[in-house]
């Protein structure tokens, strides 16, 4: 039993840390620290920075242009990125589609698409959820009908994150009407420039534009847009969702947010003393810090298990539940700490208003935005269902 990293792992960590310290542009880390939305420019430049170092394909095997890192290395890499105030790596191409193509794609698809993910030629977005098929994905209704050499797509996708910047979308569509709903689904790669595809923004409750709806109306896509076999889509979808779960606990992001919160609570005067000296506030802060310390170890334990088994088990649902709750609790405190100063609509405040530390102007908006963390990617209710079946065996 040893909870420490090995000397090799520590050396790796130092290498990542040094690179980020030396290479990450200040405007990028500043923007991340400030919260709120990051534009396409920052996200693209960050991808390019990692790609330049050969690290963008950090979950891919070496022979496809990836790093070949093991689970611990990936974890360390993700934690260091969080600690350095890096943006997230966009998961749609790198973490989701990449592994799918590597496992299920044709040689042509691999050689065409994989390099374009890394070099930024393609920005992928996700066509999974539908208005009537969220948690219950198998009930999806978007149809793809074979017509000569093409497929014809009709239907609607939703919750398409950052689709406004994307040029491509991967789509789950129904290709057979009869049989079990899971058995008639296929997985397609779609160029968003095709006619018959319309992307409409969904504004989120705090005011941001992060997700979209995508409408397909007789959109024609070529035969080679199919990944794997026809009607194999459910298997592919589940494989992809397993990979979506990488870094699901978000421990590094939470540590970073907690550190920012503590700084803010030290600076904030409330009724004659720093808020961090208020016992009720300090108690909330201490509790969430303790929860986070525990979850860091829980995360490492599950990582270790996953490494031994070859893939993560249903226990990762625990990380999703607790990780989102902890992150949300921190965002709640980051909102509370502001008192009245939390009120202004982000971006609406005149310059002479802001007495806030610049890093805090989005705290209230972030609190509302982060409500989604316990909803997307399988809501915490779905995660509890998974735990019930797979772990509790009830």
């Amino acid at each position, binding site marked *: 039993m040893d909870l420490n990293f090995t000397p090799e792992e520590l050396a790796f960590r130092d290498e990542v840390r040094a690179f980020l310290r030396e290479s990450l542009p200040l405007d990028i880390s500043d923007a991340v620290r400030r919260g709120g939305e990051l534009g396409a420019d920052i996200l693209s430049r960050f991808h390019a920075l990692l790609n330049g170092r050969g690290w963008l394909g950090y979950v891919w095997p070496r022979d496809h242009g990836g790093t070949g890192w093991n689970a611990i290395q990936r974890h360390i890499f993700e934690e260091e990125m969080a600690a350095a105030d890096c943006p997230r790596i966009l998961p749609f191409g790198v973490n989701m589609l990449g592994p799918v193509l590597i496992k299920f794609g044709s040689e042509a698809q691999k050689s065409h698409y994989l390099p374009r993910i890394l070099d930024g030629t393609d920005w992928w977005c996700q066509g999974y*959820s539908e208005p*009537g098929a*969220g*948690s*219950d994905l198998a*009930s999806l209704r978007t149809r793809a009908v074979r017509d000569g050499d093409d497929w014809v797509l009709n239907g609607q996708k*939703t*919750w398409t994150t950052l689709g406004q910047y994307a040029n491509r979308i991967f789509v789950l569509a129904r290709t057979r009407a009869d049989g079990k709903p899971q058995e008639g689904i296929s997985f397609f790669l779609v160029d968003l420039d095709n006619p018959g595809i319309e992307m409409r923004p*969904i*504004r*989120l*409750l*705090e*005011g941001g534009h992060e997700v979209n709806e995508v409408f397909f109306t007789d959109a024609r896509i070529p035969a080679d847009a199919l990944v794997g076999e026809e009607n194999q889509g459910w298997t592919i979808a589940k494989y992809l969702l397993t990979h979506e779960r990488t870094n699901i606990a978000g421990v590094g992001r939470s540590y970073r947010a907690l550190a920012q919160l503590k700084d803010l609570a030290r600076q904030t*005067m*409330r*009724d*004659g003393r720093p808020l961090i000296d*208020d016992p*009720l*506030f300090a108690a909330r802060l201490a509790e969430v810090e303790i929860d986070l310390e525990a979850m860091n170890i829980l995360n490492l334990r599950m990582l270790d298990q996953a490494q031994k088994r070859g893939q993560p088990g249903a226990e990762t649902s625990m990380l999703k539940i607790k990780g989102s709750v902890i992150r949300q609790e921190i965002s*709640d405190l980051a*909102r*509370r700490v*502001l*008192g*009245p*100063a*939390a*009120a*202004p*609509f*982000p971006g*609406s*405040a*005149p310059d*002479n*208003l802001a*007495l806030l530390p610049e890093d805090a102007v989005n705290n*209230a*908006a972030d*609190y*509302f*935005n982060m*409500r*989604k963390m*316990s*909803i*997307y990617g399988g*809501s*915490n*209710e779905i995660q*509890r269902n998974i735990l019930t079946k797979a772990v509790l065996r009830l």
Partner: protein
Amino acid sequence: MDFELSEDRRMLRESLSRWLADRYPPDHRLKVAYDAPFHDPALWSELADLGVLLAMATEDAGGFGGSGFDISVIFEALGAALCPEPVLGALLVSRLLAAAGQDQSGLLDGSVRWALAVGEPDAPWSLDRIATQARGGRLTGRKALVYGGNDADRFLVVARDGDRLSVHEIAASDAEVVGFGTIDGGGAADVILSDTPARLVLDDAGKAIQSALDAGRLALCAEAVGVMDASFAALLDYLRQRKQFGRAIGEFQALQHRAADLAVEIEQARSITLLAASRLDGEGAARMVSMAKNLIGRVGRQVAEECTQMTGGIGVTWDYHPAHLTKRLVMIDHQLGDTDWHLQQVMAGIRA
């Protein structure tokens, strides 16, 4: 003991609710609440014509109401409709003008929009930390989150002169008013005073200010109850209509039990607000109001977060009206004392 509203208040509630449903439907609210001046001046006048402002003042002060129950009936209705009009400021100022025995007909008929500037950046809620100075008929200091301040004609300002608090009147045009829209809709302002000319309205005003704040806090509690009711009704609709795995999600017991718990907590919140309303002008009002605002803060967060969670993706979108209800519910906790601040007032009472 009688838990029925009086005939007058029932009529007030019904006419106000009908007007809100008619004139302030969600789409209109969405249009005005997030763009300057962050409310609808024409509807403000209609609201005053309806007698809503008059109902917040006593007969002595020129109105026809003014009790805790009048206030709670009005704000509960405003909350359910998520109305962004700056009624809270009018209430706070009305109580102080009444304490000073001053004419407030312009306030009550809606022709002059007033706001109260009291909290400050480092002392948002505690009167004993107010730093704005009154000296020789002039005020210097900074007031934060003055609700409705962005579109007010006149302000009452709370200032300190040594140990004593006093209340002063200023014209909006004499101060630097930094208006902004708020994340939950409606407008507010920081008010920056530097040697701003002011007229003394009330000297040695600690008690009168406390009493006005008690009324404002009660109003926020009642507003929150209205918001909770609307939020919970929307949740139940969603649970009945939304289907997953072939059935309405309201048939899933885990959600049923959480919704049942919310129902209990909302009734608790309504109950303590009634209690605070009944005690508003009596002994121990401040303590009871702090109890109410603390419970409202706790239940408000729970209702907001649970309603959002259980409505899933749709619950976090701008175009889904109930999402704005949950935002308001959370942000009420940032006004006139948050959950912890009010708990500490109650704790001080227990120790004493």
